[in-house]
């Protein structure tokens, strides 16, 4: 298919996933910090959690410092509505919608209309004011973003032919998710370590022994819609080591790193093996179909498929998770280079 169309689908996948992830994390940070009480020690903890959220979604640099210390009064507004934050939810939705608009002739009408309607809705100034006005509404808004993302995935699932375009959409979605889960886990891990609940543990037993408060780990599971699955899959109460194992190495949990990376690999496998047969195009003179992106993602997937939790912890979890993020960036770059002659609208271009 046309490179620019493939790129647009890939970025729709990424932006919608990014919006959903931000909404989930904002919602869960809210419910988590509200329960902390109002002592000065709790105030400091609260601020740490909101700061951590800024870090997870990559909004530390855009957050306006003059608004005071990060907290529930200013972080949600920045993450949901700010036009200065290129990763804010409304910006992600707008970018996904702009990308869909450049290729609306190739996506089902239902899919385009769902995106366009939600975009028009979140752009309404009245809606913004209401949602930022109070915490309860901001969480409700976050819920509506998650609902929207799931609606869109449902529509896509039932309308989109399983051709190249579908696989580019999946590649974008799951690459974003793998990276996001890695970052979420990493920031939370360091945060909890800082609060003395995991110490410097490099094996599962030490980790679990050091955990004084398991509530944050439960919250983490909630934020990834994995709380119930955790109990069913791990068959025990909340233990940090089992939570980490589930979120990194589970082959079945839809938001685990292994699962997400596996989906990216499967998508690229289809794109490189099946698609050329019906694409109707020929390689440029001197080109091969050999894909570095696919090789990279295959290796990352294999690492997670054949690794044990002990291996992951032995070298330090933080380092392992940073490595995942770095490799995800590289895979993204390779996909851009190999399949998209042109980049889609970036945030800067769309605003220009």
């Amino acid at each position, binding site marked *: 298919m046309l*490179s*620019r169309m493939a790129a647009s689908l890939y970025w729709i996948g990424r932006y919608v996933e990014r919006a959903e992830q931000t909404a989930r994390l904002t919602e869960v940070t809210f419910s988590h910090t509200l329960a902390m009480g109002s002592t000065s020690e709790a105030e400091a903890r609260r601020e740490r959690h909101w700061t951590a959220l800024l870090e997870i979604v990559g909004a530390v640099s855009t957050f306006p410092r003059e608004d005071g210390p990060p907290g529930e009064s200013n972080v949600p507004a920045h993450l949901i509505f700010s036009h200065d934050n290129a990763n804010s939810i409304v910006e992600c939705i707008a970018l996904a919608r702009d990308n869909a*608009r450049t290729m609306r*002739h190739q996506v089902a009408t239902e899919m385009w209309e769902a995106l366009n309607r939600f975009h028009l809705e979140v752009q309404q100034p009245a809606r913004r004011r209401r949602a930022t006005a109070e915490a309860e509404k901001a969480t409700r808004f976050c819920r509506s973003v998650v609902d929207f993302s799931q609606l869109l995935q449902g529509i896509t699932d039932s309308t989109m032919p399983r051709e190249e375009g579908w696989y*580019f959409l999946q590649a974008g979605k799951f690459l974003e998710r793998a990276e996001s889960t890695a970052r979420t886990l990493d920031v939370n891990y360091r945060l909890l370590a800082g609060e003395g609940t995991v110490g410097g543990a490099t094996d599962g037993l030490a980790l679990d022994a050091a955990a004084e408060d398991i509530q944050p780990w439960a919250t983490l599971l909630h934020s990834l819609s994995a709380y119930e699955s955790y109990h069913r899959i791990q068959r025990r109460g909340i233990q940090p080591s089992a939570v980490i194992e589930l979120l990194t190495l589970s082959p079945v949990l839809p938001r685990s790193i292994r699962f997400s990376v596996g989906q990216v690999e499967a998508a690229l496998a289809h794109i490189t093996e099946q698609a050329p047969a019906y694409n*109707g*195009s020929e390689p440029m003179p001197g080109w091969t179909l050999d894909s570095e992106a696919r090789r990279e993602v295959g290796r990352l997937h294999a690492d997670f498929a054949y690794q044990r939790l002990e291996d992951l912890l032995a070298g330090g979890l933080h380092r392992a998770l940073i490595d995942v993020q770095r490799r995800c960036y590289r895979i993204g770059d390779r996909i851009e280079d190999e399949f*998209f002659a*042109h980049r889609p609208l970036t945030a800067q271009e769309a605003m220009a």
Partner: protein
Amino acid sequence: MARARGKGQVAGSADGGSALAGGLPSEVLAEGVLRNGYALDGFFDEAFEATAKGVAPRKQYVDLLRQIAAMDGADLRRGADLANRSFLNRGVTFTVYAEGDRRTERILPFDPIPRIIAASEWAVVEAGLRQRIRALNQFVHDVYHGQEILRDGIVPRRLVVLGRHFRREVVGIDVAQDQYLHVVGSDLIRDADGRWLVLEDNLRTPSGVSYVLANRQIMTRIFPDWFADLGVRPVDTYAGRLLDNLVGLSPRRAVPGASGGPAVVVLTPGVYNSAYFEHAFLAQQMGVDLVEGRDLFVLDNRVYMRTTFGRRQVDVIYRRVDDEYLDSLAFRPDSLLGVAGLLGAVRTGNVTLANAIGTGIADDKVLYHYVPEIIRYYLGEEPILGNVPTFLPFDPEQLEHVLANLDTLVVKAANESGGYGMLIGPHADEKEIEKFRRLIVANPRNYIAQPTIPISRHPTFVADETGDSGTLEGRHVDLRPYALSGPDGVTVLPGGLTRVALTPGSLVVNSSQGGGSKDTWVLQ
């Protein structure tokens, strides 16, 4: 004349009830959205005519108006709102450039009262357009080949070769099937006597057909009952016909067993072009790729698109990019919208463009004056559709007349569209008139002047102040029918885009100037 319009009769006032006895039961018409009656104000009205007793619906409108009169304004308002909301949600929008480079997407406001054209009337319009397009196509071919019409002195040579849209780069180049004008959207109006006149020809990249299709879709959803038994001719065959014609232009034939076949694409300037929705819509309807210039490249005089696996050859380009932006090597070197080297691919016959390069020479507003002569010259027939009388300031005698009568004339720049660069004398102030006087004197070739035509009106829904109800009032309309030329000749889509000036008294129907649109029904 628009400025001197008189008060027409008003039905539904004290004694107006009986005025409609011939067409509608008066007690029905005096209610609902027609409770205040309907004023002709001295204009030709598409739906009503003056009778000895007052105002009566024309024959083809009787059934429809009976249904509409039975509704109250709130129903119509809800319908209109629903349509407009649906257009917004679906992104049936055009982009406008407001002050300070800000872009906004707007819908074309939709008026729910459809325009109806009787079969006999349509037959005239259709035959007239076919004739006109056949002649203009021969003219364009002649201009870029033998130039016989110039040698015979029918059209002044300097008018053509100095025209802004004359493309010397394509002189002598043959195009597939000698077809230049694959898609045409000429603007028609009706004068005070109801005569159809061509106001201008759009022979380059006419837009608006997507609204015709979108309007019909929404009408059948919102007011399905209105269609009952009328025999409205369908419009949804347009995309299929266009695709057939485009595929037929391919220099490469389909190879049995090979994947793909001729590749047709729609070339758009991009997502910020005001007609972007239409480009995407047509590509979607035809099931072909929508490309921008940056998606294409030329190698060895062949055009390719960039795909995820390399390249795919392109055979036919339905281009919605103007000539001067098509190829930065041949035309404007600063253009980023086109494909460098495209003209070479056209010249070698490896790709076909629709419409062909250089057709703008025939929709120049000065050349417009000569179209009746062009028809006589090539076809030996009398023109079926008339022209609006046109004064050409580049003729010194006519210049004098134009300058002396600027307050009653409409002046248009020869190469502008969208209602820009236009003076409507009767509605203009002294300052504006002086501005145009200077412009015309400075460059007479660039302007034409026409008398102000009191163009026809059509009942249009006007919401009242509360917003809960409303009435029908006359608003000025024009019609842009869409014609496709292919190997089987010219087909005209039955109907077209009726544009309506929603501002009371306004004669300007352009979407950029406060115009809206209506569904247009041609009866069987």
